[in-house]
């Protein structure tokens, strides 16, 4: 199966070397029952519906799904950066035993970057064009450590720049003097300045060419190893995911439908939507027509009843799928799937 997925022949290879073992690391992130609603003029759109998962130190989670499936909302909700008309309705995001949702505004501001960092999607415009890179790194540190001396701040910035393979001279440069890949590295360097426990990278390579993509991903791997943070990698590049992450979370219509190790996900996806995603990857051996996923992603304003995927699901035309929302089921090996095909006892109905 592995060699039938072109371009991602390295599936699981990183896991073998990094030997990530969930049982040995301490849990640094615990998300439970997270729910976000956007109050639009056309009605309420539940962009995130009862999402729960945990992440250990040093673990890397890939979050995939179609546009509008709630990946970015997930990231913003964890940073508590959902802007009106959106609202976080309920849920907990526990980082290092502190529930971010219970913090006041000032507490949350301090938690950003120091506990949970965000590496932005549009790195091209994520740096202020009129102030120096160094100033943008220094202000981030000073906002969290008021007493830090100037030289200590500069040392910290230089170390961060070096760890993303940038020359410390970048400190004195402006954003327009850097290439796209360099800007993305600066964003990563900013993300690790305060050695956070959790790093969320929102499509960090979407605007870069493939060579730079790979370099940036390697940089993320390296800095993660340095500070042993949990990383959530958001994106829809399945090939990139296969090469970099430990586990993959599949989002559909604001819900987490499957969470498996990368190897299980690519060799034996359980949820029919995950299966469709994996099958839609182009295949070198079986040339021909791309097999997409029939139908369209549902509108969050008018979600299908029961299982949100049932109108597009090959198994979805029964009363159960149409009326009852499937509860998450834990299968053997600790993987999670929310689908009626898998019963409470964790065995397939088929």
């Amino acid at each position, binding site marked *: 199966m592995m060699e039938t997925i072109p371009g991602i022949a390295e599936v699981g290879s990183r896991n073998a070397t990094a030997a990530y073992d969930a049982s040995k690391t301490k849990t640094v992130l615990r998300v439970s029952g997270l729910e976000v609603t956007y109050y639009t003029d056309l009605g309420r759109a539940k962009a995130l519906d009862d999402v729960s998962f945990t992440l250990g130190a040093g673990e890397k989670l890939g979050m995939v799904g179609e546009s509008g499936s709630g990946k970015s909302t997930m990231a913003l909700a964890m940073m508590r950066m959902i802007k009106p008309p959106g609202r976080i309705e309920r849920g907990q995001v526990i980082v290092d035993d502190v529930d971010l949702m219970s913090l006041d505004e000032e507490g949350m501001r301090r938690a950003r970057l120091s506990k949970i960092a965000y590496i932005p*999607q549009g790195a091209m415009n994520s740096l202020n064009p009129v102030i120096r890179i160094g100033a943008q790194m220094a*202000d981030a540190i000073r906002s969290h450590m008021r007493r830090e001396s100037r030289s200590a701040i500069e040392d910290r910035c230089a170390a961060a720049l070096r760890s993303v393979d940038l020359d410390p001279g970048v400190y004195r440069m402006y954003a327009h003097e850097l290439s796209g890949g360099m800007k993305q590295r600066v964003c990563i360097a900013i993300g690790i300045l305060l050695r956070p426990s959790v790093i969320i990278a929102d499509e960090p390579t979407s605007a870069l060419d493939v060579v730079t993509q790979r370099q940036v991903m390697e940089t993320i791997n390296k800095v993660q190893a340095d500070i042993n943070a949990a990383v959530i990698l958001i994106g829809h590049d399945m090939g990139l995911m296969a090469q970099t992450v430990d586990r993959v979370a599949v989002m559909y219509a604001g819900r987490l439908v499957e969470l498996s190790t990368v190897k299980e996900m690519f060799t034996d996806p359980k949820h029919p939507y995950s299966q469709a995603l994996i099958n839609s990857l182009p295949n070198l051996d079986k040339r021909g027509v791309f097999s997409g996923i029939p139908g369209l992603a549902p509108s969050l304003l008018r979600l299908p009843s029961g299982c949100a995927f049932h109108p597009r699901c090959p198994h979805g035309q029964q009363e159960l799928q149409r009326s009852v929302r499937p509860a998450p089921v834990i299968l053997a090996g600790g993987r999670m799937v929310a689908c009626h095909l898998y019963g409470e006892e964790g065995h397939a109905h088929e």
Partner: protein
Amino acid sequence: MTFKIVIKRLLFFVLVVWAASTIVFFIPRLSSRNAIRERFGELARTGGFSPADIEKLIASMQQQFGLDKPLLEQYWQYLGNITRLDFGYSLSRYPTTATEVIAQSLPWTIGLLLVTTVLSFVIGTLLGAVAAWPKSPGWLRSMATPFILLTGVPPVIMGILLLFFIGFRLKWLPLGGAYSVGVVPTWSWTFFFDLMQHQILPALALILGSVGGWVLSMRGMGITIQGEDYVNFAEHKGLTGGRIFRDYYLRNALLPQVTGLALALGTVVTSAVIVEGLFGLPGIGTALNLAIRANDFPVIYGIVIFITIAIAALMTILEFVYPLLDPRIREN
């Protein structure tokens, strides 16, 4: 910024002033009118002069003003005079020179117009920035609205309304003049307060109507900047609201405003003519107004050339300031 660019900008400044002066020199000479002949013609109509004497007088005056020389020679002399800021004698206030007339009226205009323009820029820009910033308090945001409403009122109407209600009806502030009649200008607090009392209404007339424009342009720019990724990322970095507002939002939204300020300073004299006239202030606007009525060409020339130099100088300064604000245009 290299030395070469500085030289280039300065040369460009000289070029602009030269081009404007040349246009100012040649345009009146395209018309067939002769100021001296018209002047003596009027005199002759009052009677008691022989036409031959008049012709002699005209010829001698032409000679005195150098108008009998070939056009090109006159032009060279004129350019030479401009470099020395020498525009000749004022015709209506002989023997005062045009330069002296300008020098006397200039401090008034700078004091009022420059201060009000900069003040409206600062107030309007800050209000606009605050109005577009979602986290600013409601009472502060609502302060922008009255100024936006007043944008449509021209300074003349504003001035008349202020004069009528505050000056004439309520008698809170004087109706006009730069200082009270009979007061001798001295370096004293009494004189200063008297002076300020006379400046409040003209200043209000200028500020009230122009703040709204700055508010509107800054608010528009602010809304655009707020959506920029770097403002979002600044919040993700856990920066304090004040720092995001100042270094990420304001710094970037300010750039087009600075261009607007330079342009607005260029039109200062236009508003000076109206407002100084209305409030009876002895500034450059009043000087220009009087000079036009008295056909006082040297003073008109002087003021026009002076305005040209001032605007060109402001633009040159802006060219030097802008790269300091925006590093992206530092390498030309």
